[in-house]
């Protein structure tokens, strides 16, 4: 399963199959600024530093342009890493809102 690293915060989590970046971080007790969580508002964009993501649902061009995709921007509520991926949050830090999950979450 892909490993997700949040470079801006030094957090590493193991993702499940077909899990989005947002789902994976939530499942490990972490939060950051999100909006609709359904791919429509664009507020949860993050920068992909390395690795590759795919989309299992359609994403509107007005939300994420081709140029942004090519420059490594992804919509974290919809982006599913297909390999070990490192991202960087924009102008904010990851918040640990559930320390129990941060300690005990497993990928299976």
């Amino acid at each position, binding site marked *: 399963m892909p490993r997700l690293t949040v470079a801006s915060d030094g957090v590493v989590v193991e993702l499940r199959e077909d899990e989005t970046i947002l789902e994976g971080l939530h499942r490990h007790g972490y939060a950051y*600024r*999100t*909006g*609709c*969580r*359904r*791919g*429509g*508002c664009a*507020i949860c964009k993050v920068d992909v530093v390395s690795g590759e993501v795919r989309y299992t*649902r*359609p*994403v*509107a*061009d*007005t*939300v994420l342009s081709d140029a942004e995709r090519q420059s490594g921007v992804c919509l974290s509520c919809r982006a599913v890493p297909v390999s070990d991926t490192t991202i960087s949050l924009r102008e904010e830090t990851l918040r640990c809102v559930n320390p129990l999950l941060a300690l005990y979450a497993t990928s299976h």
Partner: protein
Amino acid sequence: MAVMRMGYMHVRVTDLAEAKEHYANTVGLYQTLEQDGRVYYKGWDEWDHHSIVIEEGGVGYVKCGFKCERPEDIADIEAKATVYGYPVERMVAGENPEVGDGIRVTLASGHQVEFYSHMTSYGLEVGTHNPDAFPRHMVGIGAPRLDHALLWVNDVAGIERFFMDCVGMYPTERVVTSLDDDAKTLATWLTLGESNHDIALLEAPENKIHHFAFEMRSWDDILKAADIFAMDDVPIDIGPTRHGITRGTTIYFFDPSGNRNETFAGGYRCFRDRPMVTWTADQLGKAIFYHSRELNERFLTVAT
């Protein structure tokens, strides 16, 4: 002049199948037509053919329509909007399925707003002869009807003036930068009659739709709606809570494409001689979310 209500809201959705599941089975609307990649719905207490239109491809606002009482009302708005300086074009019957002749006005924000006086009557499941109080087998939250919308616009004052001077609305509440004479209006709630608001406008850097709302009948209905949203894994923005503005009770939530919806119940009756309520920007938290008294991180930053 008699514009009666916001008659329809038309938005884009990224995935039609998921959106249909949401609007039919969670919100509980009746599908009345599916044609050309668009699906048309009405609430159980609406008699016109449709009040919600969803269209596959993208996300966000397409247009909304206001229903006038008579064709002469449309002509009146056409004349006034033309003088006001907003582009007006005529639309013919059938351009929108089951909707008669009308006009389409483009606001300074680019939002298109249509005015019409005829839509095919679909009727109510409870009928109009000795009707029961509600349909026996409602689905999801069983939303009775479309209530209002809040648009993000780049010129609240100018667009408010259009809705007042050309459409006949009046503001029930405003958010202003200060109580000084030269204060700027940041947001306004406008009504056609006795409802608390039919459209609201919020000053914003982009011209989008913040939300459209379904009228619910009670706080109990709002609470039950939240329960249904939990069952259906609907992302809730905030609520159930109360607005300071309008006093209405509310849940903001998102459809499967990220368009914000609202369930709205309560709010006081309005009349044209009612003194307008003014909120200062420093009290915006209480004005929007009366209990927590602070904005969440999405209210002023997320729209489609």
